């Protein structure tokens, strides 16, 4: 196999890390929404925690994305 082809495949595989991030972000927002609908008065106070959790989960997806770009362009 050509080395550049292997690089492309590797980059594609690296983006799979974003699957986990997608699941995580969906879980966070879904659970936030179901909780917020049950107790809307408490939802506003948890906005900071929501953003924090999203940021932490998203960081892993971004990590995979950056890794893929690094593989692709190195």
């Amino acid at each position, binding site marked *: 196999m050509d080395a550049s082809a292997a690089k492309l495949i590797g980059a594609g595989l690296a983006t799979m890390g974003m699957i986990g991030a997608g699941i995580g972000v969906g879980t966070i927002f879904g659970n936030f929404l179901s909780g917020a609908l049950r107790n809307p008065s408490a939802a506003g106070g948890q906005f900071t925690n929501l953003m924090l959790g999203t940021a932490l989960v998203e960081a892993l997806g971004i990590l995979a994305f*950056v890794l893929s770009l690094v593989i692709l362009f190195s």
Partner: protein
Amino acid sequence: MASPMEQFQIKKIVDLPDFTIPGTNYTVDMAITNSSLAMFVAAGALILFFAFLTASPKVVPGRFQVVGEGVFTFIDDLATSVMGHEGRKYFPFIFTIFTFVLTMNLLGLIPGNFTATSQLAVTVTLAVLVFSLVLIIGFWKHGLGFFKLFVPSGLPLPMVPLLFLIELFSFLLRPVTLSLRLFGNMLGGHVALKVFAGFIVALGGMAFAGGFGLHNLGIAGAVLSMGGVVALTALELLVACLQAFVFAILTTIYLNDAVTAGHGH
């Protein structure tokens, strides 16, 4: 077609003499590049904004003042809600980080402008700045007691070393994730924008080449891509604000860890 990565290429605009750090033989190229120019523009815009805002403040604010004070109280509320009374002391730092990152993000969204926060050097510098501040404050306030941050209270003794290592590792990973999050978001957004913009050009070229109904298909595709670029720009506007906010909120939480060393509010 140009590579979507070409927009991140650093170019020298004004060449300044190199600067050698005293005591070492490491030289720094102090040339004004498009990246540092973007920082200058962002800092200048910020200074102008706040100078204008605070030049003649009114007790009953006008529209412009409402915007400025909205940003101010937003971060002020954030700092006090996370750090409590200590928040006032660290507020200028958090506020500077937030406004600077936000301005660099937003200015980068103007087509043709360079995005300073899409440079790993910039985000790493900001993250290391925050991280070193956390270390300095933590050890200055608590001494070796700062290590208590890595040992959750009420833990059975055999678990302590293991959890200490895990917590230490996640602590050391903080500047990495902090810098990569901002960098990755900005990089990814701009790459996606560039790819869609590239589609417009490619499909438009196809439309002009014509033949076999490809003409109409090319025009439809180009229009669709144009819509995609507009939608992505709106999304990137949200991401630019959100990432600045996330950077500020994480800075606040890390600083709070350093101030309280793990035992709560």
